[in-house]
């Protein structure tokens, strides 16, 4: 790259980063403000003292959030629910996607549509039906959430992974067959590692979707308050400091729950790099 091109490139990156990050920065900024600072007119880009205009962040929002048992409990619940949901969706989804992407069988196309149809209703509409199933099966709140989250994670996983399995050259399966692999061995030992980038991508998206889900969680934890996930716990913040709505505390909680996810992405994004480098597949 020439120098000028390089500067342009990094400028573009800076611009995009700014666009993606500034609302998050605003949450951070708001989380460091007291109630009075939040209502200052005009609003300020950093928390400042209304009297002398000096930089004066407050950490009391964080302090009160960390002391909140509901919040810590919520993190634990969300982690359990989201991890289990993602694992189940990836296992069932990669099995199904292998069948749809690489095996020939009757009803393949219809199956794709049926699986997609599972996720085509608005959440509100199917809520009462789901509630009936959960009472019949006598599931606790955790399992209710994990099972119902399949509705939006599984079709997505199956579809994305199917498109990736399809891309893999048929020759891999044929040569594995010659080497004496059963189709299932081919799947587990050869194809699955090759789709690692897709698995990580879908896994991350499914995990975050499950972590953020609100309506089902609100409904299924109505009785079992200890099972509330993070989004529900935050929505029930009554506020320890604030008299009205505890906006500062909500923002502090948001920062605290987003940071672990960002770290998770940072760890996993290395895996999103080309799994299909030359050598394993020659196209």
């Amino acid at each position, binding site marked *: 790259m020439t120098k000028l091109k390089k500067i342009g490139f990094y400028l573009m990156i800076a611009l995009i980063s700014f666009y993606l990050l500034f*609302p*998050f920065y605003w949450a951070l900024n708001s989380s460091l403000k007291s109630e009075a600072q939040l209502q200052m007119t005009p609003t300020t880009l950093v928390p400042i003292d209304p009297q002398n205009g000096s930089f004066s962040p407050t950490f009391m929002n964080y302090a009160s959030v960390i002391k909140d048992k509901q919040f810590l409990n919520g993190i634990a619940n969300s982690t359990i629910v989201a991890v289990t949901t993602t694992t189940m969706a990836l296992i069932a989804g990669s099995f199904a996607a292998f069948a749809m992407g690489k095996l020939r069988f009757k009803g393949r196309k219809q199956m794709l549509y049926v699986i997609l149809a599972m996720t085509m209703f608005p959440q509100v509409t199917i809520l009462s*039906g789901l509630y009936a199933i959960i009472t019949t099966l006598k599931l606790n709140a955790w399992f209710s959430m994990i099972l119902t989250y399949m509705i939006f994670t599984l079709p997505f996983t199956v579809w994305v992974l199917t*498109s990736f399995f399809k891309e893999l050259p048929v020759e891999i399966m044929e040569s594995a067959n010659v080497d004496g692999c059963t189709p299932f061995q081919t799947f587990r030992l050869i194809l699955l590692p090759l789709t690692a980038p897709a698995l990580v991508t879908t896994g991350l998206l499914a995990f975050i979707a499950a972590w953020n889900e609100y309506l089902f969680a609100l409904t299924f934890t109505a009785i079992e308050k200890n099972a509330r996930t993070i989004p529900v716990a935050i929505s029930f913040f009554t506020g320890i400091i604030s008299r009205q709505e505890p906006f500062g505390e909500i923002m502090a909680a948001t920062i605290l729950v987003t940071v672990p996810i960002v770290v998770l992405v940072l760890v996993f994004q290395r895996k999103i*790099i080309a799994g299909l480098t030359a050598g394993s597949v020659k196209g």
Partner: protein
Amino acid sequence: MMKGSQKSELAKREQRLAYKMLLPTLVILVVVALYPLVNVFVTSFTDKTFASSKKAEFVGFDNYKELLSVKIMKLPKVENEDGDMVYENPLRILPRKPMRYKEAFQFNFFGNRYVFGATNPDFLSSIGNTLNFTIWSVLLETILGLVVAMIVNIKFRGQGTMRTIMLVPWAVITVVSARIWEFMLMPTRVGLFNMIGDWLGISNGSVSFLTNRALQLPTIILVDVWKTTPYMALLLLAGLQIIPGSLYEAAKIDGANKFKQFIYVTLPLLKPALVVALIFRTLDALRVFDLFQILLNNQRYSMATYNYFQLIQAKRMGMSSAIGVLIFILIFVFALIYMKGLGVDSDD
């Protein structure tokens, strides 16, 4: 002969394996989706009330008729009290039985004035809002997502950090991110955008992004584009990753410039990933709920928030199920258009 039966034996084995591997998904599908979906279909033909013990009765297509009946009628000129000729009040013209039609809008056609009446104008406008929202937000986030994906697909220092930054908007809890935007969009200078607008001197610092009808949809679309571009970008990035670098080299040798490489190499090979990403984003956008519920709060409905309103506030469960079915049908149509239009399921 021998060879043929051997082959069919292999094919049968392959088919059996396929069904076995689909089993977990099918079991989950039956347990968690079948009953609620059938239930919605059945309920949509009744007048069932939400959270009440009142017995539901079968009403046939009444819910659907109430949602979808429309009538276009010509407005005659009449004399008002002052002796001027004016158009008749649409309420007098539109039928009231068996269902009451309300005015949705008026229009002129060949010198005559017409009124477009509907039994449920709110629902029809919610369809319009949702389609408008879906088309714009999916279009914008696809373009932006593609740009972001192609940038983070290039090797450079800070690539890993950039890939992480890319996902931040998606990682913020949806309900809360709507609140962050609500706060930034406040109609006074307490809100970030009005502060900036005032500071730059392009507005008076009291723009009501969320109550001004002309600004509502554009605002919500921009918020959604911010939130879901990462989703698009990540799916497209995964698609870009499996394009072998050797293809670009071959194209280069053939004298293709960067733009030609994009059109003839990147786009066709990215298509499967792009279609899947488009289908799922469109599907989510057509069911948009959180943003409309939190930011517009019943001032203006999306299909899903109207559905929610009918269920929770109006307690009309039969009606809300009928809306759910209509949303389902609309989404299905979109999915079919994508699949056929982009030729994804044509390879078998």
